[in-house]
């Protein structure tokens, strides 16, 4: 195999495809560019075929997958852009900057649609607390998320923090960003007319992360020698970029916009050209540089953060540069859009690249993954109730995540009606007279037991969370975190999980508007748990009194709506009953809109027991609970899977709740009363309020600084 192929990260087959596509041997820069653009991270070569099964159109979709972010019409003349993305591998090596640059990258993707970023949600997965390396990773990642989000002024309004041995030394950092734009402010990333200019806006280019995308396509080992050039985020520049770009967009000076993420100028320019069926001619000497002596390949592939590529009409060039100067951002015209669909780049007159756009962008040979049949692994059967209580309360899942989200500004922007810690985040979009709901969910252990059902349950949990705040889903963005796709079991899980998400999304008529795939997560030979993360966006029913929802307290009696037993009582995830879920969700929204009940909890990991114990701890109250007559005790309290909701409501609400459950084809049980100083189940003392509150407030990590 040609050594240049290995150096560029291309397989023998890929090298042959490249040579054929060019009709000649590649120039050095061309080989490196193909190597990066055809890497897993950039090309989705292993996953593209599978992802085609997602429903992506219809409803409120203004822009589906394929652009930098998906865009939904939320009414009132406003659009909402959203996308979730991972930054796992860089965070495993340099947690602070890895997490920070992950936030910056997803924010710029949303900005590329012409949308003002208004919120972040983060799904974080760490090894168990107490292990020095994992604690260091967790501290760094949380600090990095905080550093970027707080400084750039975008509120972090939700997320999740999970611990599992499977993520030891191989953390996952998935960041979801939401932005809003007026209808006529939508920007695409398809290049403008022939002759229009390519304007590079933002930080001066250095050698950051050269070939970082290719690096993400090989599993991590933690030693110093493999530590590559790590990208450094600069949220101050990021903020200037947001304001500059939005002003340019508002003044109609931008034809199209792309973010410079993986593979920098190469991918941004190539994608912009590909979408328009045009080409680009770039003069690399015009790129503002931070370092001396950079080669053409380095300039083309640099992943210096806080840069965007704008396509600007010739007549608007001067005005655009003036606005960039006013905001204090470097900006330079580096090229032109050409009719001939070629990527042409030269440095000081020497041609570095002259490749057909079609070869560069979309030229990567795809490989399809397949699902193996019958691979269902029974989950551990639930123990007796009191033992289950001890496990839950003693686990790392029980302490409040406030100690994490306290690092994040959740209110900048004044849009946060409900912030972190609730069932879902609620954001005011007064421009549209609407309230948007957003949540992220993940059930990796269920997916490991059965990929299809576990992934389906992940989507359904998000549906329930939205219903619990009176919202109906309008779009999904997914982040699929898996191990090495060449491992047949990993590939099978991937295909099964996609199938599960696709099935539920299709039946619910909720489109997948975009997302991200991250492979090769895990330590060599030991992949992570299959971890599909679902981000779901919804609109709150206009009849909901959001202020009342905020104030709702757990008082009166406790009711269970839905199935008595969680579907996983027998050790396997249930097949999803999407119709029943949809009907019950609708009833829950109705109950909230009528003000019948204000306090709802969804039931997820740890089943009804976890929901009840969490409620007791957060409300600082005891509970007197009774198993519904005739139901299997362990199925009721420890079973997972729905459709099920826990309601706290005055006794007088009982009939209305029963009626709502009946309309959804489900049942309602009165579980007991709220009060006292302990949680009692069928008369047995399961936990004291004092102990629950203490465990809820327990520190997950020590407070020492680790060098």
């Amino acid at each position: 195999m040609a050594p240049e192929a290995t150096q560029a990260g291309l397989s023998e087959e890929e090298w042959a495809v490249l040579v054929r596509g060019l009709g000649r041997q590649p120039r050095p820069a061309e080989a490196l560019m193909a190597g990066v653009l055809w890497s897993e991270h950039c090309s989705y070569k292993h996953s593209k075929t599978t992802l085609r099964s997602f429903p992506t159109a219809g409803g409120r979709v203004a822009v589906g997958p394929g652009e930098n972010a998906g865009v939904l019409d939320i009414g009132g003349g406003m659009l909402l852009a959203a996308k979730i993305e991972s930054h796992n591998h860089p965070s495993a090596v340099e947690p602070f900057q890895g997490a920070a640059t992950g936030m910056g990258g997803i924010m710029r993707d949303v900005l590329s649609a012409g949308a003002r970023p208004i919120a972040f949600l983060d799904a974080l997965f760490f090894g168990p607390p107490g292990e020095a390396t994992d604690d260091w990773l967790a501290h760094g990642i949380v600090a990095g998320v905080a550093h970027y989000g707080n400084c750039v002024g975008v509120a972090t309004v939700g997320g999740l923090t999970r611990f599992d041995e499977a993520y030891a030394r191989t953390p996952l950092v998935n960041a979801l960003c939401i932005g809003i734009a007026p209808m006529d402010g939508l920007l695409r990333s398809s290049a403008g007319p022939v002759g229009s200019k390519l304007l590079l806006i933002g930080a001066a280019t250095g050698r950051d992360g050269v070939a970082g995308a290719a690096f993400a396509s090989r599993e991590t080992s933690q030693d110093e020698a493999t530590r590559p050039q790590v990208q450094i985020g600069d949220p101050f520049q990021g903020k200037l970029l947001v304001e500059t770009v939005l002003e340019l967009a508002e003044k109609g000076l931008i034809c199209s916009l792309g973010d410079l993420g993986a593979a920098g100028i190469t991918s941004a320019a190539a994608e912009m050209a590909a979408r328009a069926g045009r080409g680009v001619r770039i003069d690399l000497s015009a790129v503002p540089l931070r370092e001396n002596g950079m080669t053409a390949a380095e300039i083309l592939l640099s992943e210096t953060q806080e840069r965007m590529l704008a396509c600007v009409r010739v007549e608007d060039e001067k005005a655009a540069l003036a606005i960039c100067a006013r905001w204090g951002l470097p900006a330079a015209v580096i090229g032109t859009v050409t009719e001939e669909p070629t990527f042409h780049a030269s440095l000081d007159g020497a041609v570095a690249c002259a490749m057909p756009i079609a070869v560069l962008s979309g030229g990567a040979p795809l490989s399809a993954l397949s699902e193996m049949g019958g691979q269902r692994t029974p989950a551990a059967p639930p123990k007796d109730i009191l033992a289950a209580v001890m496990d839950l309360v003693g686990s790392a899942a029980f302490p409040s995540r406030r100690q994490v989200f306290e690092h994040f500004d959740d209110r900048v922007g004044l849009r946060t009606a409900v912030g972190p810690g609730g069932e879902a985040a609620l954001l005011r979009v007064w421009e549209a007279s609407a309230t948007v709901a957003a949540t992220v969910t993940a059930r990796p252990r269920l997916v490991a037991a059965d990929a299809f059902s576990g992934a389906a349950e992940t989507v359904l949990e998000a549906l329930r969370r939205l219903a619990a705040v009176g919202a109906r889903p309008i779009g999904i963005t997914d982040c699929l975190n898996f191990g090495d796709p060449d491992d047949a079991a990993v590939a099978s899980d991937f295909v099964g999980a996609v199938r599960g998400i696709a099935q539920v999304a299709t039946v619910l008529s909720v489109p997948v508007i975009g997302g991200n795939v991250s492979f090769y997560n895990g330590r060599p030979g030991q992949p992570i748990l299959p971890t599909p993360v679902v981000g779901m966006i919804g609109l709150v029913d206009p009849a909901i009194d959001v202020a009342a929802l905020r104030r709702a307290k757990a008082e009166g009696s406790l009711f269970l709506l839905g199935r008595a037993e969680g579907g996983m009582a027998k050790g396997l995830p249930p097949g999803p009953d999407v119709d029943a879920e949809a009907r019950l969700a609708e009833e829950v929204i109705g109950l909230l809109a009528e003000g019948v009940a204000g306090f709802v909890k969804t039931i997820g990991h740890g089943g009804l027991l976890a929901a009840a114990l969490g409620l007791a701890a957060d409300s600082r109250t005891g509970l007197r609970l009774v198993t519904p007559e005739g139901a299997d005790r362990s199925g009721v309290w420890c079973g997972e899977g729905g459709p099920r909701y826990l309601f706290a409501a005055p006794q007088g609400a009982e009939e209305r709740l029963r009626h709502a459950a009946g309309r959804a084809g489900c049942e309602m049980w009165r579980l007991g009363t709220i009060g006292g100083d302990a949680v009692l189940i069928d008369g047995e003392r399961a936990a004291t309020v004092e102990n629950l509150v203490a465990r809820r407030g327990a520190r997950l990590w020590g407070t020492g600084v680790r060098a």
Partner: protein
Amino acid sequence: MSRFGVRVLVSLKPGVRDPEGQAISEALPGIGVEGVADVRAGKVFDLTIEAPDAATAREKADVAARRLLANPVLETFELEMDRS
């Protein structure tokens, strides 16, 4: 005109609270460094100054330090001329 290197060392005045220094000194035993009685965290600025002579360069650095680099309420500073 020549170029002169001036290093500005900014430190906290004695007695000023230093939670960062304290956290660092508490963390050191954790990496096997015992017996560190105290840590005070400060800042270093390396200025490359164009001036006709060293004295002028030093004076410029002094102004920069007094008016910007050090906060007079809590910090003091020292200047070190680069010998090379």
